[in-house]
């Protein structure tokens, strides 16, 4: 007989084993869809791998795609650590993109423009995240729903801008005017799209890790999330911590939008984010809310997205497989997390 037992602690190797288990289960489950599409499973996954991580150019493309998800993943990880349920990274990203596009279109020296774009984008994202946090602290409004609904508000605001005052009067397309050429983030490797923002994202992850694990604010964030009563008892101003967490989380999500404007699109359009904000939730969960884990998790999702297009061309399996993989990975990870709460123990053979 087997019995479920409540676990009191989890071994460290779980942090690596659980995401790998979830990803493995996801790939096995999704291989059914590849077979359904009449393609070879090994071949399809093989193409996916080579096209996303098989050579240096492919790797740069994957990294360009990973950068916004590193930022949104960090945004979600930080927020969830404090149990501030920020489902609004998508809207915060869009706000960051719009703000940085405003700033980037103003003529000024390039480096100054880039810094100001980042500041404006982070501030815009933080301002958006402040709304659900304030509502929760002041009015006890559920942050899940309010942060989710704000995504739609920001999206329509962006649409109103690009179909209204920002509309390209020459082509009539609903896109913003481009930012100044001098504000385009420098490309780090000739012939690729690897831009400065990718490096910033890679640096941001260890910085946020340091903040969470080694600083007082990080400690307060963790305690607030794990046990708000104890935090309050210990003299931590829980409300203030939640607001700080929201500002940090929103700023990180805003930076994801900055990178997309400054390094990839150089303007704002309606589909500037293919749901990177929601992917951030997948990334953060796969990373078990560890900022360092966010990087490999984001690279995994980015590789799936980049590889799916090549796989589709080579095997005819629809590239939307990457969307299914993303959703399945999140659900599989949630199930895998049960192993942290319970353990299966063998009890005496007969009753």
């Amino acid at each position, binding site marked *: 007989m087997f019995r479920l037992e409540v676990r009191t602690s989890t071994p460290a190797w779980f942090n690596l084993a659980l995401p790998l288990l979830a990803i493995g289960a996801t790939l096995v489950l999704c291989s059914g869809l590849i077979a359904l599409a009449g393609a070879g499973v090994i071949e399809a996954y093989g193409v996916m791998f080579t096209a996303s991580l098989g050579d240096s150019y492919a790797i740069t493309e994957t990294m360009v795609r990973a950068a916004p998800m590193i930022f949104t993943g960090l945004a979600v990880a930080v927020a969830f650590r404090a149990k501030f349920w920020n489902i609004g990274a998508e809207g915060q990203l869009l706000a960051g993109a719009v703000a940085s596009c405003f700033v980037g279109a103003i003529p000024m020296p390039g480096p100054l423009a880039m810094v100001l774009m980042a500041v404006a984008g982070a501030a815009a994202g933080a301002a958006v995240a402040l709304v659900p946090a304030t509502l929760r602290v002041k009015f006890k409004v559920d942050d*899940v*729903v309010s942060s*989710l609904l704000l995504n*739609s508000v920001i999206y329509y605001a962006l649409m109103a801008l690009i179909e209204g005052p920002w509309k390209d009067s020459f082509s009539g397309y609903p896109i913003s005017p481009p930012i100044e050429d001098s504000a385009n983030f420098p490309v780090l490797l000739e012939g690729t799209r690897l831009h400065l923002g990718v490096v910033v994202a890679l640096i941001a992850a260890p910085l946020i890790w340091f903040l969470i694990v080694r600083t007082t604010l990080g400690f307060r964030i963790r305690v607030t999330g794990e046990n708000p009563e104890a935090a309050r008892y210990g003299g931590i101003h829980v409300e203030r911590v939640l607001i700080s967490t929201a500002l940090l989380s929103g700023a990180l999500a805003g930076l994801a939008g900055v990178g997309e404007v400054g390094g990839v699109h150089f303007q704002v359009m309606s589909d500037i984010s293919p749901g990177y904000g929601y992917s951030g939730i997948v990334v953060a*969960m796969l990373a078990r809310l560890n900022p360092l884990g966010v990087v490999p998790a984001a690279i995994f999702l980015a590789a799936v997205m980049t590889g799916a297009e090549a796989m589709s061309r080579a095997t005819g399996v*629809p590239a939307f*497989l990457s969307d299914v993989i993303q959703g399945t990975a999140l*659900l599989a990870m949630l199930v895998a997390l*049960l192993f942290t709460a319970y353990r299966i123990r063998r009890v005496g053979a007969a009753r």
Partner: protein
Amino acid sequence: MSAVFEQIFQVGFLAAIIRIATPLAFATLGEMFSERAGVLNLGIEGIMLLSAMTGFTAASLSGSLWLGVLAAVLTGMLMGALHALFTVVLGLSQHVCGIGVTLFSSGLAYFLYRLIFGQQSVPPSIKGFQTLPIPVLSDIPVLGPAVFNQFALVYMAILAIPLAAFVLYRTPWGLSVRMVGENPRAADSAGVSVIATRFQAVILGGALMGLAGAFLSMAQFNAFTFGVVSGRGWVAIALVVFGRWDPWRSAGAALLFAFVDALQLRMQASGLGHIPYEAFLMLPFIFTIIAMAVMSRNAVAPSALLKPFRREER
């Protein structure tokens, strides 16, 4: 100005409101049942999309629209069961699971649609539901042609509102749903199975979300496109809050939103586009957020919303 009003308030306008409100009413009632039992279902956006796809596919392959509706409802129930399995049985966090269900269902909808229909320059369409005038009632001036000359699914939505209220407030099962959403511990002591009741409520909710999807792809657009739902699921989440988790009020909220949406469409069409139409589309979300802040003083949300139930935990 009066000419503008005449142009806006016509029979066609009223009919348009009803038609826009229909999928929202189904979706809102579905989400309401789930939340009244204590389960937030953020999978709604994806469930509606996948149901719209399976419904459209079944109808287009079989030639029977009602078979399509059945497929959409079954899809909704299946995805509802998936969400319930994760959140009710396994007790996993509802918001993250909901996002997972939405990502998974939308991805699956896109994938299967592309697999079945391939990439076509003009998306395939079907001959969708036709209006079904109700004798006598449809002859009432203004109201008749607007309300009683509609698709069969519209009538179903209109009937679903009092039916939902009856089930929720007047049946033993409805009482159980409200109990497990308000105080699962007490419900458990009273011999109500919290797990089973929540499971059933989320599945019923999924069925209603499936009907919403079916309406979109088989009555409103008569085709499946990737933007067929485009945020209507999130609107429903807002409307449930705005309607204070009550079937009548939620349906009323859906009607109000449909009015604003129809007005916005009319104003665009009549060249009165001084106000960007997006401003109107934002309204339900902004109003709901404000309403949440105002209502928070007299907590009307189901008390056990977002809280998993485990019997052994005290």
